[in-house]
């Protein structure tokens, strides 16, 4: 469907919530699924990490139907951002897909934003689907709470993170995964000094305020149970010039002390 767009799906090693065992990360696997539906076997899979680790999870991703994947070799404590950005730029990536956040490691969810910043590309977060790509512009569906979608247009190249609302990943085939070629690309590792001094300890569950639902009807209860955080205030700006709208956003960010 899209001959000359290079699509990349970034892979991380997931972590099963019950067993803590490595697995395909749910959202990254969705990134592969979307990539496969967009460009089929022309999809590029990239994982930045150590080449020493057990590659069975990477092979699970490849087993979804790809003959090869790229492993950007990084040292244990490396910050993968610089080399990943360089790799994507050098390879003329058009669309870069990945999960919202990793299931292991820092799991800060910052990588897509930092990548976008570094590359100077737009980012669309929590997408459900990419419907069409025409003349360098993609029609993207954002996932909103309760099954709602918002259609937006983004110019290529861009970065997108996948919401759980995107199509579930297809089954992986052990045999083809086993035969997939893992192309190790050695790249410069930038040591992440900050994390070196971190102490990692298991998280303690935080006390949670019980949600008291004062719904009268079943429909209300259903809504309350399924609603994602919808944010209280806010203001929809429909009138005014783009400059005025930008000013309004800027003012808000100042007020909320997001920027100083």
């Amino acid at each position, binding site marked *: 469907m899209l001959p000359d767009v290079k699509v990349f799906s970034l892979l991380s090693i997931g972590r*099963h919530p*019950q*067993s803590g*065992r490595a*697995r*395909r990360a749910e959202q990254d696997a969705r990134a592969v699924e979307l990539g496969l539906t967009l460009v089929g076997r022309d999809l590029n899979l990239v994982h930045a990490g150590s080449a020493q680790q057990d590659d069975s999870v990477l092979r699970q991703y490849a*087993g*979804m*139907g790809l003959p090869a994947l790229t492993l950007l070799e990084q040292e244990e404590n490396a910050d993968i951002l610089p080399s990943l950005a360089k790799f994507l730029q050098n390879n003329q990536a058009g669309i870069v897909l990945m999960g919202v956040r990793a299931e292991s490691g820092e799991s800060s969810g910052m990588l897509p934003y930092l990548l976008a910043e570094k590359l100077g590309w737009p980012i669309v977060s929590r997408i459900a689907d990419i419907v069409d790509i025409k003349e360098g512009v993609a029609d993207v569906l954002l996932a909103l709470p309760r099954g709602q979608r918002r259609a937006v247009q983004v110019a290529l190249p861009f970065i997108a993170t996948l919401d759980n609302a995107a199509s579930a990943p*297809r*089954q*992986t*085939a*052990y*045999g*083809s995964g*086993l*035969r997939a070629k893992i192309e190790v690309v050695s790249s410069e590792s930038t040591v992440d000094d900050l994390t070196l001094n971190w102490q990692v300890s298991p998280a303690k569950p935080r006390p949670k305020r019980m949600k008291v639902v004062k719904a009268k009807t079943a429909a209300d209860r259903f809504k309350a149970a399924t609603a994602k955080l919808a944010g209280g205030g806010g203001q929809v700006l429909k009138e005014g010039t783009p400059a005025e709208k930008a000013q309004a956003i800027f003012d808000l960010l100042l007020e909320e002390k997001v920027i100083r």
Partner: protein
Amino acid sequence: MILDWLLPTLILTLLVLAGIGAVRRMNMWRAGQAEKVDIIAGLLAMPKRYLHDLHHVVERDKYMSRTHVATGGGFVLAMALVILVHLIGIESKVLSWMLLGALSMMFCGAVFVFKRRRNPPSRLSKGPWMRLPKNLLIFSVTFFVLTLPAAGVLPASFTLGVMGQWFLTLVLSALVLMSLSEMLFGMTWGGPMKHAFAGALHLAFHRRPERFGGGRSTGLKPVDLEDNALASGKVLGVAKPSDFKWNQLLGFDACVQCGRCEAMCPAFAAGQPLNPKKLIQDMVVGFAGGTDEHYAGSRYPDKAVEGKAVGEAKGGVDHIITDGLINPETLWSCTTCRACVEECPMMIEHVDAIVDMRRFLTLEKGETPNKGAEILDNIIATDNPNGYAPASRTHWAADQNLNLMKDVKKAEVLFWVSDGAFDMRSQRILRSFVTLLKAANVDVAILGDEERDSGDVARRLGDDATFQSLAKRNLATLGQYEFKTLVTTDPHAFHCLKNEYGDFGSDALEGVDVLHHTTFLNQLIKAGRLQVEGFKGGKVTYHDPCYLGRYNGEYEAPRELLASLGIEIEEMERSGYRSRCCGGGGGAPITDIPGERRIADMRMEDVVSTGAEMVAVGCQQCTAMLEGVVEPRPVVKDIAEILASQLIEVHS
């Protein structure tokens, strides 16, 4: 007379043609993968296997077994004598009389074949099979007439006049040609008589020779993961007919289309798109090439697949089977209950073939239907099919005071809990069993969180990689501890541990008695270690779990246990080795291929028809399936539960 030279010529020609056909057919089988077979020993053992093992199965249908002995035996003898008398021309009255005798025997048999074919049951194939009895009759009658002069009953040149002579010669030659074409040519060129030729060789080169002489061989053969996966051009499992072992192909060719498998298949009865007979015939179409246009038996029941007209299923030895020959849903409908294998007089291995093809679908294509992928992912990531935390495996036993192997290292009995640990209904069975073990003062321990799924479901769903990984890890765990007996309440785990774990080069289970809990409890009762009081409820029937009965031959222990409670079992029509599956095996509830009815409902009807108020089972999966049938219905209880409720506590 012309017949003097025409008859030998005809016989010789057809023998030669049959010889050519035989070579051609053998070459078809040789397209399969290599498999080590002891050729000489197999050939030597063949007559005994035929007379003993095959007839043991045929014997279940007395009518057919006598018919077959007369017809088949008569034919083999007659054909040998025909060659001596009519081809080589040995002039011996004794031989001729023997030939007359053999032909009469064959004639009698053929009459019964003919009678059965007058109004054939639906399981039998029609088409070419309908003409077979006629040709059998013609063969015996024609050669009878032709042998009369040699036996001295009729003078060699009795007077009929020239015209009469010509006419008789013409008629007799035509009949000889017709019947010999069926019997000799058809034997190796794909006619109904092929079953005799391929069947004999199949018996000789069977892939599971352990089955002969009353033995049992039910464990699936492991996929060679190391070699196969990485060799170029090879796939895991069976994609094309040529990926089967050569003797599997030979086995398919042995099918007589008797449809006994079809009559026993629960999936077929439930209207799911599976018919084991058609499946085997499709395999033949696959390696011989062509379409299924000559198939004249019942088809796959499902409408969607039935929509395929006869002749639309195409195959070739190097064509992907699921690409036009067989619908994957056919393969996923099977519960691996082995009823077909048990019933097949030709000892064909349907389940092996089905799982072989599933392996390709799962391991190479990633196309396990419905919940299959999710369940497999869970098993891989958590060692249990529903993705529960592995650390919660022993929660069910929080109040059971059971020793953990990790702590005691050594126990008389290891209780393999199985994934029933995560299911509240199954936990009742586990608790009952523990109650009984304690009452009998058994020195028992469990693995606790160190236990993992046995791999049964993964293997039946075709994921042999995951099965092997689980098996190896379980064996490594088992190897750390010392125990004499391993007992489990789950026949599926029982089967894996007992019959399938042996392929992975571990001695963890060497010298260990692997037992199902009914067997073990029966030992305890017999040894007087358990006191139970008589059962006073209503009528009880017993459902044989496939993986306990047909897979492991344990039909007696559960019945003896129930008898020890004074229960007289109201046997169902389909019980023992003919037990009908509950629908829960082979991952069938996971792949969930729709049919017209549910297998569990049919089984519950079997139960109801005995008038029983309770059905005793020996399997948590059967319990789940049968309890899933809507009420009102008889109560479903595991034998351990029934026994525990009748336990007399002995206070010491």
